[in-house]
């Protein structure tokens, strides 16, 4: 590791104090003069033709300022991927799930808005609906979108090498299947937005989103406002985890209603609406076969996926690709075949969630490796080590592991958990299990086809020279990106962290694709670093000229300027500075020239000092169809060991301990890296043991609350031992790469492998409730 002043420390978060004191503003905390409150009418039926919508009564209710339906909103199609725009803001011909949006109301107060909704009369003709992904793909199933026969939203077929032949040549082929359940991201802050439309035609949205940039584009497109006239400001966001990665009907409705009324309009989803909007983890069915040689060498993997997509595409195209592409590593394979199918059903649309597309298939694969290892009589860790990829390896589907500390992670958890003394030696009812995983550090390509930079950053020095203002469109959603950017800027400029301010999440500041695919540390980080270097170069050039020294002799460290590593001769500058600033209370002192002095003097010469940076990945990946999905400039990886106790009489599971090692390249901020690791584990534990969005026979969610949809509480999470492994990533800024999503990959299979160790029962369906485990144990004996 390099010798850093700011990076690689445990610096406290730049937004810590405002959040600890309740001053941090989230979208729902904003209030504007004359602000109206909006609400959306959602379909009570899962599949129905809309015959008539009568809004006349609602419009007459005192206090109602506007009522909009598809008549006012138009029928411009939108979605995430331009290849599959299949949504309109409001349903016009039919509704496709319970919750599909039909109309929106703006009123002087929230009660009135709700009352107005109840006055909108919609006549439906109910249609047969389909809720199960396998049923949906059967002949004769109710058709959800006319354009997609067989309800087939997307299909992927990829093969690398001759998989069937490779499987034939193996000593052993083992099969496994796996079924997870639809998850909800369950971020604590429900979606919320305030739209302010001002003449002559500029719309500003204050909204809880991960992707200001994409929201700006989508809202501009659907509301027919020139994109330059839409500004999206992301205040603090109370968690996203994926579902806040796309423009929502809430944002578009607020924008439209503000445009029509000329008044600011606010809307916040109820918790139930958060569940109805969904866009969270799909339900996946996985079917796999792994071919190996007697000595444990992995040869070939056949992988099939069926995804329950819900009523619209959302991120689904990427999702169904990821379920295949993210199995290419971290083990060497000679061949791999993947067939993926994403079906439409009459349920809320699924989208991206932490570990996008990869989590369920990783869970299946890592169980399959344990099953195979057991058959071969090999320790699961040894089996993995035998096949592990290392830095410089290329996966069978052409993903380039430009750095990969996978082996180091495995060794770290083996030592850190006491695996060798525990595996196979625990009493019945106690178990230990492990698993690995890897993930992208930013998608190699934007969601829409474009040559755009993925991130640009502007750094402007304050005119007194004392503060570097970093301006970026990137999205701080809790993961700590503002802090990471401040640290990168401070390190690059050679100034103190306290002297950097980050202004982020505003589309007027810069282009940034946002917080998804674990991209910001690497991509926004690169752009920040480049912008800081630009600023530094400007000041260094000025000093070189002024003091007549070579640029190369100048360095900035910790807020001071060094010449050839020493104080140098800067008398002339300091004298000028003091002359210029008579009466200022804080004249610079000390034996070194300060950064503030230098920057101020440079400003006097050149005007405001502004540096810019930009980043887009080079062309990545193979040339086969879908090769773009899964590409990334770098990959993070992790390994986990989980220890469980099972109550053999009830099936209750207690996770006693977790040991987690993650290779994030250089850990920009160690505390934040651990925070991401621990948060990922708790989301994985929840998905594994408790979480499931459940539907009744008519497609209504049975448990749309945080009481009945159960995420882990403080009592359900064990102590986690977090070990940071730092490889050097050549494509990352200062060698950094992802941690935010990859850390969830091993969690579910590690728990499942531990449960098997404790009970001798293989569970291949989530969540592992006490009942599911108890019944499985009972049926086995």
């Amino acid at each position, binding site marked *: 590791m390099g010798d850093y002043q700011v990076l690689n420390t*445990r610096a*406290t*978060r730049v*937004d*810590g*104090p405002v*959040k*600890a*004191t*309740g*001053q*941090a*503003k*989230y979208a*729902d*905390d904003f*209030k504007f003069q004359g602000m109206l409150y909006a609400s959306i009418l959602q379909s009570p039926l899962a599949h129905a033709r809309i015959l008539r919508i009568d809004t006349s009564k609602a419009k007459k209710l005192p206090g109602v300022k506007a009522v909009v339906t598809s008549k006012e909103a138009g029928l411009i199609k939108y979605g995430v991927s331009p290849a599959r725009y299949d949504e309109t803001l409001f349903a016009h011909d039919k509704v496709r799930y319970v919750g599909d949006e039909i109309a929106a109301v703006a009123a002087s107060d929230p009660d009135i808005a709700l009352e107005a909704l109840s006055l909108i009369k919609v006549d439906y003709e109910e249609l047969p609906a389909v809720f199960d992904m396998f049923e949906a793909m059967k002949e004769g199933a109710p058709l959800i979108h006319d354009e997609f026969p067989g309800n087939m939203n997307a299909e992927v077929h990829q093969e690398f090498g001759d998989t069937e032949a490779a499987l034939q040549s193996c000593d052993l082929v083992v099969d496994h299947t796996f079924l997870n359940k639809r998850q909800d*991201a*369950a*971020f*604590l*802050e*429900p979606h919320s937005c305030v739209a302010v439309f001002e003449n002559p035609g500029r719309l500003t949205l204050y909204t809880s989103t991960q992707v200001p940039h994409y929201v700006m584009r989508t809202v501009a497109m659907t509301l027919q406002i020139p994109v330059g006239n839409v500004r999206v400001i992301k205040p*603090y*966001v*109370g*968690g996203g*985890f994926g579902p806040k990665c796309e423009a929502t009907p809430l944002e578009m409705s607020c924008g439209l209603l503000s445009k029509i009324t000329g008044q600011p309009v606010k809307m*916040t989803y*109820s*918790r139930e609406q958060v569940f109805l909007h969904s866009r969270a983890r799909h339900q996946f069915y996985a079917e796999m076969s792994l071919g190996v040689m007697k000595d444990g060498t992995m040869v070939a993997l056949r992988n099939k996926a069926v995804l329950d997509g819900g009523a619209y595409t959302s991120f689904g195209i990427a999702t169904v690709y990821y379920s295949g592409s993210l199995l290419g590593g971290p083990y060497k394979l000679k061949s791999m075949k993947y067939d993926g199918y994403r079906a439409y059903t009459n349920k809320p649309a699924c989208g991206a969630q932490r570990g996008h597309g990869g989590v369920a298939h990783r869970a299946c694969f890592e169980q399959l490796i344990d099953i195979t290892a057991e058959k071969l009589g090999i320790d699961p860790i040894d089996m993995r080590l035998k096949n592990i990829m290392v830095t410089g390896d290329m996966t069978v589907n052409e993903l380039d592991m430009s750095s990969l500390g996978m082996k180091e992670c495995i060794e770290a958890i083996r030592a850190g958990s006491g695996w060798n003394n525990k595996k196979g030696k625990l009493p019945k009812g106690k178990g230990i299990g492990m698993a690995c995983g890897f993930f992208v550090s930013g998608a190699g390509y934007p969601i829409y086809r474009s040559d755009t930079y993925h991130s640009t950053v502007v750094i402007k020095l304050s005119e007194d020279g004392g503060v570097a203002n970093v301006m970026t469109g990137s999205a701080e*959603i*809790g*993961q*700590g990106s503002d802090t990471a950017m401040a640290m990168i800027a401070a390190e690059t400029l050679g100034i103190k962290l306290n002297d950097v301010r980050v202004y982020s999440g505003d589309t007027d500041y810069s282009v940034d694709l946002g917080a998804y695919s674990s991209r910001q540390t690497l991509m926004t980080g690169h752009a920040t670093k480049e912008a800081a270097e630009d600023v530094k170069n400007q000041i260094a050039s000025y000093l070189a000229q002024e003091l007549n020294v070579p640029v190369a002799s100048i360095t900035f460290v910790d807020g001071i300027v060094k010449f050839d590593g020493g104080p140098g001769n800067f008398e002339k500058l300091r004298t000028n500075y003091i002359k210029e600033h008579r009466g200022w209370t804080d004249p610079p002192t000390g034996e070194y020239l300060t950064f503030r002095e230098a920057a101020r003097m440079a400003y006097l010469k050149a005007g405001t000092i502004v540096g810019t940076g930009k980043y887009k990945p080079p062309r990545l990946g193979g040339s086969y169809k879908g090769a773009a999905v899964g590409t990334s400039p770098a990959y993070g990886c992790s390994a986990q060991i989980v220890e469980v106790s099972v109550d053999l009489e009830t099936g209750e599971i207690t996770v006693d301990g977790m040991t987690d090692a993650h290779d994030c390249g250089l850990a920009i901020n160690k*505390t*934040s890296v*651990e*925070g991401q690791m*621990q*948060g*990922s*584990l*708790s*989301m994985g534990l929840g998905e594994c043991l408790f979480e499931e969005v459940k539907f009744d026979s008519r497609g209504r969610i049975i448990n749309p*609350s*945080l*009481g009945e949809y159960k*995420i*882990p*509480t*403080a*009592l359900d*999470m064990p*102590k*986690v031992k977090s070990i940071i492994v730092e490889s050097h990533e050549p494509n990352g800024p200062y060698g950094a790469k992802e941690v935010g999503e990859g850390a969830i990959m091993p969690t579910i299979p590690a728990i499942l492998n531990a449960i098997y160790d404790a009970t001798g029962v293989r569970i291949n369906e989530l969540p592992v409730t006490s009942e599911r485990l108890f019944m499985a144990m009972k049926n086995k004996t």
Partner: protein
Amino acid sequence: MKRIIKLTINGKPVETAVSPNQTLLQFLRDDMNLTGTKHGCGLGDCGACTVILDGKAVNSCLVLAIQADNSEILTIEGLAQDGKLHPIQQSFVDKGAIQCGFCTPGMILSAKALLDQKPNPSELEIRTALSGNLCRCTGYQKIVEAIGEAAEVIRMREES
């Protein structure tokens, strides 16, 4: 139908009219502009709305504003004194117990209520005290550590 209530919020006396169907949460956020108290569910399920009412942590989404008549309320805005963070706030910042921050005000107040009762809690007591405050970001570990550390700071401060 509005009624006058008198109460103390963060040490300041307040006298104002509220409607019976206003929750304490709505009253604090909408009428008092104390938006540090968060709304995550409205049904008692998440703890984001936790405030301290007469010394006890409660879910303000399930208390009527009118019921707070004559009471003493502490919200997150009232914890720092003279611009100096309370030790629990400080250790949340120092230990990395904050990510998105949406659960943070409720967490900190639940922790405050605990430490006021039990200055030296065990890890299990800390986790139990937080068990009604959901956090989706942190996995709770750094929160639990922060509270343990804050307890120590407070004890030391009181000893000296």
